[in-house]
């Protein structure tokens, strides 16, 4: 019964055959196992590499949902541009050092447990809704579904506030990066004097 929701979604991808099933199972297993690997590896370099696998298998799930543009953007932006920064920094740090979180639970670990509990609750709610037949309607997938034009239209109409807020957050992050980057050498020079 809990598996019913994904099956419905797959049928919505208009090719509900064995191949789609196989791809979905493989991608979902890869998604889960790479996600677990991200937290279990003590070497941060391997964690970052697992994160690439995680984001790539999520892109495969998007493909099954007919979200081709989202899948492509997911790989380019997250697996490509963002994780490469992690890998870049970790490779410079040697990458064979102990994980900074090794040695006892911290506030960070506690926060992670709380976040995981919240997501688990969400999953339970979704499964319960599926069991209650509220998610069993197959989605209408038209030809333009998930196209860049349609996504852009939604960004500038229904989700305008979230879209603009995100751009401000990113701008703040960029300014913060510049400030951190330009302040660092001066501080170390003052320390050396």
């Amino acid at each position, binding site marked *: 019964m809990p598996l019913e929701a994904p099956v419905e979604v797959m049928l919505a991808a208009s090719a509900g055959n064995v191949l789609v099933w196989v791809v979905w199972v493989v991608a979902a297993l890869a998604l889960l196992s790479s996600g677990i690997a991200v937290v279990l590896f003590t070497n941060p*370099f391997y964690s970052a*590499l697992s994160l*690439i696998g995680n984001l*790539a298998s999520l892109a495969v799930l998007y493909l099954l949902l007919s979200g*081709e*543009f989202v*899948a*492509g*953007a997911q*790989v*380019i932006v997250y*697996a*490509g*541009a963002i994780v*490469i*920064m992690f*890998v*870049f920094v970790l*490779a*410079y740090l040697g*990458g064979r050092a102990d994980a900074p979180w090794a040695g006892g639970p911290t506030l960070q670990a506690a926060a992670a447990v709380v976040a995981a509990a919240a997501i688990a609750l969400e999953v339970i709610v979704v499964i319960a809704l599926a069991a209650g037949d509220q998610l069993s309607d197959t989605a209408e997938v038209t030809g333009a579904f998930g*196209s*860049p034009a349609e996504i852009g239209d939604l960004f500038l109409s229904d989700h305008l506030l979230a879209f603009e807020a995100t751009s401000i957050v990113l701008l703040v992050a960029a300014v913060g990066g510049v400030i951190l980057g330009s302040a660092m050498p001066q501080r170390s020079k003052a320390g050396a004097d």
Partner: protein
Amino acid sequence: MREPWWIDVIKAAVIVNIVMLSFAYATWLERKVLGRMQLRYGPNRAGPYGLLQPIADLVKLIRKESFSPTHAIDLLYFAAPVVAAFTALAAFSVIPFGGVWEIGGYEVSGRVADVSIGILLIFALGAIGIYAFLVGGWASDSKYSLLGSMRTAAQLVSYEVSLALSVLGVVIMAGSLSLVDIVERQQETLWYAAPQIVGLLVFFVAGVAETNRPPFDLPEAETELVAGYQTEYSGMRYGLFAMAEYVNMITLSGLAVTLFFGGWSGPVLPGPLWFVVKLALVVFVFMWLRATLPRLRYDQLMQVGWKVLLPVATLNAVVTAIVVVYA
């Protein structure tokens, strides 16, 4: 109407082999072109005009002992060249090289895969390919390899942004991310090389940097870094990295032909032949650059990427968008 799956399989097998063969002869052509431009003969011992030289090189690489550093991290070290070669070859699959023919009652199209997000797929595979260079250098456990792979990653990440933005103008004009649609729009109107000349220039400069070709070959600057991320690789593992670089260059040339020079369209001659002729010309320009220009310094590389190409590419995209909307 739709072609059966086995035609797709045959096409994929044929195209992969043609791309690998053109990689082999691109190395021959490069050595010949460089030789002639430096008043030398280039390879001329193996076969007529040295035409068997790539075959001889292949046999040499395969028979060579593949050394690996004792402290290398095996799985990552072995997987890196494979991933690099795979992403390079896979990216070529969405580049269209001809229209649609009818062969034996089946409609056969001149492309391995017609994807609605063709350009994004090429960039996504390129983004994964960067990891191969970075991880290969890191897993080699060598200072030169690590520094080389760091340079590669920094350079590719910097120029990927300009490369993607320079393509945006073409995408806006064609109104599609599918490479087939873009070529067909150019057949209806004109080659985008004319209205998108700024985009073409940015695309080409960023493309040369993206493929680590001279004058942007800092990741492999032999005087500073031995051979960059591939220092610790030998035999066919090195061969796979070399193949990835050449195939990336061929794919990028194919992308330039498709986006700016009308793809397979042209008079009299059949489509695929036009595509190959245009592709060969672009590849020749890559080699010409290598013979002509000295290598950039690292700070110059970053200056060009972030302070020249990125603003120009952004401006080009914005102006194109305004013109398309209001004209």
